[in-house]
């Protein structure tokens, strides 16, 4: 989303101008990236402190996410994101509070009211399709959204995002084929971090770039450096314009790095060398983008410290807010299975409180959480 003119501040130095942006856009992009990182880091702290049982992270992916989301029209175009899409979601309008509510799985979590695991964002208002766990399914949803956009002449572009490992799923093949045949307004973004959990790229695909698959569908395939936020922006803008003007889909592969373990359940030192990890850290998009904006004179020390203060406050606020929010009420457990609650089955006898059309009379609820065998299995998701 080009912010040029937002707040009337259209001043553009040479860097911004070379991308058709204003300096204010660059600052906003940087702010989004830095905010995503700060939220993400806080998630890990909360996990280690035992406040939230699970974290899955976008660290290392944020540069690509911000650059590629930026050319889309907020609240109009659509994104079907994935579990690392923290910066994407922020760029598309979700707030730190929204994200923290999802981490804490509280009743006020706007995506799922605490029903989904952390990382499974979603926002109808912001056109961010609800993330599910089975990878790659969302590509078909985005393609269907693009089909509806075309049929209904809504002028919307739909984007699907996933990792390179997920791009090997059959659904991706079927989706790209269909989108290409109908020249749908669709962009497929692959955030390639070189691993699917522990499986390295060379055991996931036999080619260097996922983008090499694009010609097989008759669509352009583009590789972009995910640490180069503005290159991502340019690639995204081109693809979005092509999509919007009837030119059909594009596959954009952003080379990124996974700065953290796969998730809080994973131990990446078991399968990654210290060298590999160091190389990853050298490809952190945050310091790279910061250095570039400093060099271009867009980020001044004053601005940076103002941003840092603002971001710290936002993260603090989001954490406190989410922590204080109530858990969902178990009486809501039967809600939203069908549009008409009467179509659902009767609740179990221990269901607290009434449900529309309940067949069995609710019992007094038994004490929850009394299950024997008690631990959580130590799984790594």
């Amino acid at each position: 989303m080009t912010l040029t003119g937002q707040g009337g501040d259209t001043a553009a130095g040479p860097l911004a101008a070379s991308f058709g942006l204003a300096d204010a856009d660059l600052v906003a992009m940087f702010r989004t990236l830095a905010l995503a990182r700060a939220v993400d880091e806080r998630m890990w702290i909360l996990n280690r402190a035992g406040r939230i049982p699970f974290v899955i992270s976008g660290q290392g992916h944020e540069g690509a996410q911000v650059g590629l989301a930026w050319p889309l029209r907020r609240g109009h175009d659509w994104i079907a994101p994935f579990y690392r899409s923290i910066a994407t979601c922020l760029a598309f309008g979700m707030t730190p509070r929204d994200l923290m509510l999802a981490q804490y799985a509280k009743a006020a979590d706007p995506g799922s009211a605490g029903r989904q695991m952390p990382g499974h964002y979603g926002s109808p208002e912001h056109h961010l399709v609800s993330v599910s766990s089975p990878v790659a399914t969302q590509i078909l949803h985005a393609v269907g959204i693009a089909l509806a956009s075309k049929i209904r002449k809504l002028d919307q572009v739909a984007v699907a995002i996933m990792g390179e490992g997920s791009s090997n799923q059959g659904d991706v093949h079927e989706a790209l084929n269909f989108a290409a045949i109908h020249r749908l307004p669709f962009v497929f973004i692959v955030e390639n971090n070189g691993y699917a959990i522990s499986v390295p790229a060379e055991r996931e695909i036999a080619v260097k770039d996922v983008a090499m698959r694009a010609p097989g569908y008759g669509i352009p395939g583009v590789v972009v450096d995910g640490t180069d936020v503005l290159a991502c922006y340019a690639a995204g803008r081109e693809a979005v314009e092509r999509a919007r003007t009837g030119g059909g889909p594009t596959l954009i592969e952003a080379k990124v790095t996974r700065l953290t373990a796969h998730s809080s359940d994973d131990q990446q030192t078991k399968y990654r060398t210290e060298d590999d990890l160091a190389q990853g850290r050298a490809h952190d998009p945050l310091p790279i983008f910061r250095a570039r904006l400093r060099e271009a004179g867009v980020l001044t020390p004053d601005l940076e410290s103002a941003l840092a203060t603002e971001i710290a406050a936002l993260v603090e606020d989001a954490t406190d807010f989410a922590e204080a929010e109530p858990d969902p009420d178990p009486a809501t457990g039967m809600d939203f299975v069908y549009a008409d609650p009467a179509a659902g089955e009767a609740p179990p006898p221990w269901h607290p409180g009434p449900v529309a059309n309940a067949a069995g009379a609710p019992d007094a609820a038994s004490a929850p959480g009394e299950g024997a065998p008690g631990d959580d299995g130590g799984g790594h998701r």
Partner: protein
Amino acid sequence: MAVRTFIEAIRDGMAEEMRRDASVIVLGEDVGKKGGVFLATDGLWSEFGDDRVIDTPLTESMIVGASIGAAINGLRPIAEIQFADFIHPAFNQIVSEAARMRYRSIGGFTVPMVIRAPYGGGVHGALYHSQSVEAFFTHVPGLKVVIPSTPYDAKGLLRSAIRDDDPVLYFEHKKMYRSVRGEVPDTEFAVPLGQAAVRRPGRQVTVVAYGLMVHYALEAAQRVAGEGIDCEVIDLRTLRPLDRETLLSSVRKTGKCLIAYEDNRFGGYGAEIAAIVAEEAFDYLDGPVTRIAGPDVPAMPYNHVLEDWFMLNPARIADAIRRLAGY
């Protein structure tokens, strides 16, 4: 009031809803120019054009997955799966995605779509053009499952399914397409989802069926009527949500319940009916809740001798009724 075949009623139902509501589209393999392999969509492409009647590539997961997306963005897709047997590649999209979208997003995203598929055997379809697949989906919260048995219901239930705000699987017994006819009003009538029909009232044995088995059950009831056995035949019509009321009040009256289904017996849909009746009508039962169903072998063989061996038929259902009545 016109007499229509089963498949004509389905075709009419789609055409009328498409005329009424521009958001209804049809997509699937060969649904366009060819009009579908059974001709269920014949004429739709010429009336509604390329945009609303889409010949898809041969990819079922895509058909369902893209329909989910289209439904999220304001359309009401009717996805045709060419044979119910070929719904399995789309299983993940149906079970993980369509069924769970509303629940996981607390109603933020919803999937108003219909998946139509011809099911069932007795048509020389062999292992992969004969399957009954309802049990895989009736188990899944978030899905609705409809299996009509008459042209009237086929049209009326399809109308309700298209207008429903949740994903509906709508299975059509292919053996009935041209062999079953019936009166269908010209009005914009709908048959609500979730209501069973008592096709034949009776006092001694309740026979529960759906789809083609309703016809076989009625014929069986007819046969045993001459022997003094008075059956009530219930056509479930909607398998999920189930009309417990009609089911249970019938069994509470007759005290005996036979469930006839074409699918493999073990773990089939009839097991759930049996379990419900056994639990909720226990005090009224004068005999064991009994099932008659397909043998537990992979769908059905092709050779007509083996196919006949596999399929339920009125004589076999009549035998089962006699056994139960004599209990």
